[in-house]
């Protein structure tokens, strides 16, 4: 396993990033990153964070965060019909850095940290994560206490209650 812990930095994407240094196994995740990530970030459609190797400027991975809302049918009797949340949407790890469990050790904790920042100032009760079916990450997230809200034909939708 490559020891890169000290070289890893997570930060918001910017126009100086070497986008083409990143390539993961999913074309659609690559395509978004190359063509839309800076646009989305700049226009606040979603915030795009990169995991960067500060030694060689490689982009190790990226993930996106955006606002989200759960509409709760029949929630009126519970007094909650809409629930504000944050969505951890797209995620990708570069092919050269796969197997390092960076999603578990870096992306998820960083995202929860961002959520803590947000919830201090804006109503936000849940973190929602979409995990592709078949991805072992789902098992890890359930182990640490995330809840599975729904299984779609392509994804598991998991949540974290941010109330502490």
């Amino acid at each position: 396993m490559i020891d890169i812990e000290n070289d890893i930095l997570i930060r918001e994407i910017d126009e100086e990033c070497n986008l083409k240094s990143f390539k993961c196994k999913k074309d659609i995740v690559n395509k978004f990153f190359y063509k839309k990530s800076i646009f989305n970030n700049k226009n606040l459609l979603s915030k795009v964070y990169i995991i960067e190797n500060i030694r060689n400027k490689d982009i190790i991975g990226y993930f996106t965060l955006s606002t989200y809302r759960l509409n709760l049918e029949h929630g009126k009797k519970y007094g909650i019909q809409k629930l504000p949340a944050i969505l951890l949407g797209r995620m990708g790890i570069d092919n050269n850095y796969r197997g390092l469990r960076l999603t578990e050790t870096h992306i998820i904790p960083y995202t929860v940290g961002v959520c803590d920042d947000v919830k201090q100032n804006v109503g936000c009760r849940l973190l929602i994560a979409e995990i592709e079916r078949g991805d072992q990450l789902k098992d890890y997230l359930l182990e640490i206490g995330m809840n599975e809200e729904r299984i779609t034909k392509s994804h598991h939708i998991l949540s974290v209650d941010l109330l502490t």
Partner: protein
Amino acid sequence: MFDKLSFTDNIGNRGNIRSHFQQTNSSSLERDTSSLTSSFLEPPENLGLANIINNSVFRIFSNINREKIKVLLPEVEFSVTNFGQKGIDLVILSETGKWMLLEIKSLKKTYLEQESLFEDYELTFNKKETKRLIKRLKEGPSDEMKRFIEDSIKFYKQMKKKEELYKQGKL
């Protein structure tokens, strides 16, 4: 075409397109309104997801929202109108109709294959899911999850400090 179809100012407004046009005083708009409304009533070609009204106006079905279109087709000008008619969410305007058609077909394919990647910004829970979630919300997160959140906050703060040092050139 964009000037004439200036209802683009009303992106996101709910209401009937005919009533919307009737409220507009512009004579050029009124002139276009009749042809548009009749076209909307009788779309010439059904493509499944998108109906071509003419070379520059598309009617989009299903619940694709304008954020998705913006992300996928950022260079295309378009307007969004909720007509109050079931299944009609968007009108896209483009002067390059054929190109748009291709893009929309592509969009449909991509959307169907990778729906979750488009970040819908919302999700509706059914009665059972709602009941389950509300129960958990009342209980709050488990002790294990609280510890994970605390550890995550520490990690995040450390990373932010590292970012500051990096920006200052100290790494």
